[in-house]
Each structure stands twice: as C-alpha cells, then as structure tokens.
C-alpha cells in the first residue's frame, strides 16, 4: 500500500494519460505541456490520497490480525512487533470457525446459480419483446431490490420454518434471490440491449430452435454480461448478514454470523476477530480480480 503512495509521482509521466485531454500527444503544443504535466500529477495525488483513505482501515485490520492479543492491548504500533500467525491458525483449525466460510460459499454459489438461471430468459423477454404489463412487471421486480431486508427478516423466518427449510443453505440462497434476481434481470437486460436483433433473426432463419439459439449463440455473445451479473449476485449475497443470520442457527451458519456470536460470547478476542475479518475479504478480492475490466460497466447495469 505504501508503494502506491511513494512511487505515484514518478510513474505518472509515462503511465497515466492526461486526466482531461484524451487527445493524442501529437496535437499537444509545446506551451500546453508543462500545464498538462502539473495536472497529471494532481490526479495522481488525488488518487493516492483516496486509495490511502480506502486502504488504511483495511491495513489496520491486517495489522491487528498479525499481532497477539497482549500486544494489541499493551502497545500501540503501526506494524506487528512480534509477527504471529496464531490467529489464523485458530480459525483454520477449528471447524466451528472454518465451516462458517464453507457455509457462506455454499449458499452464495447456490444463490448465484439460481438467480442467473431464472434471470436469463426473463431479461431476454424484457429486452426483446413488449407484452402485456411488461413495464409494470419490470418496476415491480425492481421494488424487490428496494425492499429492506429488515422488513422481510421475520416473515422469512416463519415461512422457511414452516416448510422445514430453516437452517439450510438453500433457505438463505432462496431468501437472497429477493434482491439478487431483480438486480440480475436489470444488469442482463442492459447487456442484452446491446446485442443487435438481426442476430436473433438470422439464427431463426438458419433453423435454430429458441433454446438452441439461446444457449449456443446468444449466451456466448453476452458472456461478459453474465459474468458481471454473477459477480454482483455473488457480491450482494456474500456481504449480506441480516437475512442469513436470521435464517440459520448451526448447520448453515455463515461466517459473518460466526464472527458476531463467537466474539461476543468469549470476550473480545481482537486478534482472531481481525483475522476472521481479513479472511472474509479474500474471496471478494479474488473475484474482483477476474472481473476487473467489467466492474465499472456492471455497476452501470450495462447501460453505458
């Protein structure tokens, strides 16, 4: 993290094009050059400060996770004096801890698969056809993205208890479809709009049936859109706590809930708490890495 700050001014000359002018270098006049360099450095400083602001709290968590509890409480230091991995060892060897991660990953994956599977045909219908009540239906779907989980916590608890799904992975996965399916439909619809209709028509003329056309031709065309939608389903399911905590007790307890409960029960074990926190960041970071070039477009729901 410190690297970014220290070599920021040095790298800007060659790596970062002007913040404002996207014009080719050839058109830049001699007179404009010094001004432009100054502005570029300004951008680098802004970005450096902003990233520093983003990374400091995360660094602090990492720092704490590598200290022993006695060191955390007795001395105040910017980096661990006695580097220890004991906190991570506690988590990775204790089933009640690491099963939390496994549970989370299971329901997040289930949710992503379910959401994308049902959202694909619906998004296609919204992007290609107009039918009775389509606009109202679309807005109604969006309203579910706006529904506060707090409103649904109790009814969900009763619904899933009554059908015997309480404390299962599928219950959490289904509950999270509440906000993920509308979002997936919204994103996919945005990406599908970008595919020209002529492709559909050509495929039908060539004798493709709808399912075959959809899977063989259409899905590869919007592969990046599917990836982005999956990423967002993963993300919102992974970060959610209120519903997943309400719907589970032991068997499917997510890591986020494990953190709150174990810590409050056994006093404040800052080191382990921090280590658990760091480990929850890892899957997200991995997934970001794979979709890094599409993140911005995905956040814009495919509408840029």
């Amino acid at each position, binding site marked *: 993290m410190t690297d970014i700050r220290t070599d920021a001014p040095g790298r800007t000359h060659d790596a970062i094009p002007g913040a404002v002018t996207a014009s080719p270098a050839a058109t830049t006049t001699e007179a404009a050059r010094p001004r432009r360099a100054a502005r570029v450095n300004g951008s680098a400083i802004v970005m450096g400060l902003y990233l520093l602001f983003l990374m400091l*709290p995360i660094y602090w968590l990492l720092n704490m996770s590598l200290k022993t509890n006695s060191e955390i409480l007795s001395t105040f230091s910017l980096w661990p004096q006695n580097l220890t991995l004991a906190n991570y060892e506690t988590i990775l060897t204790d089933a009640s801890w690491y099963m939390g991660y496994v549970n989370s990953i299971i329901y997040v994956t289930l949710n992503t698969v379910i959401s994308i599977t049902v959202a694909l045909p619906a998004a296609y219908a919204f992007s290609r056809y107009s039918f009775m009540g389509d606009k109202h239906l679309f807005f109604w779907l969006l309203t*579910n993205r706006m529904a506060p989980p707090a409103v649904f916590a109790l009814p969900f608890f009763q619904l899933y208890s009554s059908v015997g799904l309480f404390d299962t992975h599928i219950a959490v996965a289904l509950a999270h479809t509440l906000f993920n399916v509308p979002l997936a439909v919204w994103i996919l619809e945005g990406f599908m709009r970008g595919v020209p209709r002529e492709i559909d028509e050509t495929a039908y003329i060539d004798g493709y049936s709808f399912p075959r056309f959809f899977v063989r031709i259409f899905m590869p065309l919007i592969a990046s859109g599917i990836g982005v939608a999956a990423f967002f389903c993963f993300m919102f399911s992974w970060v959610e*706590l209120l519903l997943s905590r309400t719907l589970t007790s032991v068997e499917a307890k997510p890591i986020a809930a494990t953190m709150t409960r174990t810590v409050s029960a056994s006093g404040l074990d800052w080191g382990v708490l921090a280590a658990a926190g760091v480990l929850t960041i890892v899957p997200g970071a991995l997934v970001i890495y794979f979709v890094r070039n599409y993140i911005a477009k995905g956040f814009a729901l495919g509408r*840029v």
Partner: protein
Amino acid sequence: MNKTINQKAWFLVLPVLVLVAFSAVIPLMTVVNYSVQDTFGGNQFFWAGLEWFDELLHSERMWDALGRQLAFSAIILAIEVPLGIFVALNMPKKGFWASLCLVLMSLPLLIPWNVVGTIWQIFGRVDIGLLGHTLDKLGISYNYTQDFLAAWATVIVMDVWHWTSLVALLAYAGLQSIPDAYYQAAKIDQASRWKVFRYIELPKMQGVLMIAILLRFMDSFMIYTEPFVVTGGGPGNATTFLSIDLVKMALGQFDLGPAAAFSLMYFLVILLISWVFYTVMTNLDKRDGL
C-alpha cells in the same frame, strides 16, 4: 428500440415470477396480515383494523427514526456523489494503473457489511485503533460510543469509505463512454476545464449518475448492519436508523403488529422515492434513444 409484441414472452418471465412470488409476495402478505391484527401471545390473533397504523403515525419514535434516516441518506448522498465524480475524473484512463485503481476501489464493496462495521469499530477505538488513537493524540476528544457527534461522524465516514467507490466506478464508466471527438471539439472552442465538465462530461454521465443515486439512496435507506456493529444504534438513540429500530421491535420485542405496520410504511416510503428516481431515469433513457 421498437420491440415486437409477443404475449408468449410471459413464459420466459414465468420462472422469475414464481421465484419472486415465493420469496417476496408470501412474506409481504404475512406482514400485511400481522399489521391488521393484535396478539396476546400463543397463536391467538384478533382483528385490530388500522389501529397500529394510527398509533404509528402518532408515535414520536417512528418520526424520530425517519428523521434520522432521511438526514443520514441526505448527508451521505451530498458527500458521496460529488466526491465520487471528483475521484472518477482523476482516475487513470487505461493500462495497469487503471486496473489497479479499479481493483483497490472495489475492495470495500466486497467486504461483508458486519466486517465493515468491525473494521471501523476497531479503527475508531481510542486504545487500539489508528484513527481514534491519532485523534486522541491530537487532543481531540473522540469517543463514538459516548458522544453524539463522534458517533454520527464515524457512521458517515464509514459509509463514505464503503460506498464512494460505487459512485466513482459508475461515473468512471460514464466518462469512458465519451468519444474523444467531444474533447477535441471542446479544445478547438477553447472551452475551459469547467465548461468541459459542465457541458460534456456531466450530461454524458447523467444516466449512470441516476443509477448511482438510486442505488445509494435505496441502500443507505436500508442500512442496518454497519451502524449496528459500530454503535449499536447509540449513544442513546442517536444512530438508531429505521432498520435498526424495526429489527429491535420485530425480533427483539416481538411486537408483531406494530412492527408489521412499521414495515409497510417503511417499504412505502422507499417505493415512493424510488419510483420518482426510476421515472426520471427511464425518461432519460428514452431521450437518449437507448
């Protein structure tokens, strides 16, 4: 775009309908059901009509929570939207550094919300947190569990930390879609930096900014986990936002009737405001011929 009329498209939407009906309509009906009944324990329910709604409209607790919630959403939107645009304008356009910025900026978005709370809880503590410790050393009294202002400042800074990147990424996506020709034309006209922003960049970002504001408004209005972990709604009721109050009522005190009435009002407020945003957004889409 001119779409073909095809009523059979309903079949394609059917799976979504079934799923959402299961996970949204049934629970919502349960809420409606509770909101008009009273219970005296056990499983006995009595018709209460609109009593709960009436009570709710006259309860100071609800209005206070709503006021705090609106203030919170307004403050974070007022900070995050300009800051996000500013960051986006300063982001590198392509290459390794652009990717690095994208990855690092997305990182806070992927952290489970209670971990976000934990991070700031630790970060702000005077004894072990960098922020709290530094402020303390500078002679600023700072204690987010005791002091009203400190609690609000912590919750707001935390939200800015957590979500500004979302606005920045959206604005960045909008900026990326502006063709070079626009800038060249502006250059020929010798437009000032401000004018380039005002007449080229801002209008082109309009669509994505509406999405950003819509998403940020909805999520900030539903915020629960982060302030709950950091302040627990305190000191007193200072940071008890709508969701925190609702969960207290429904799962803590098990006051089903009032909690259900509360839920419905809460949902309606969000729907109303979101509907306005959505209408504006689709009109923008139409105007741009998307």
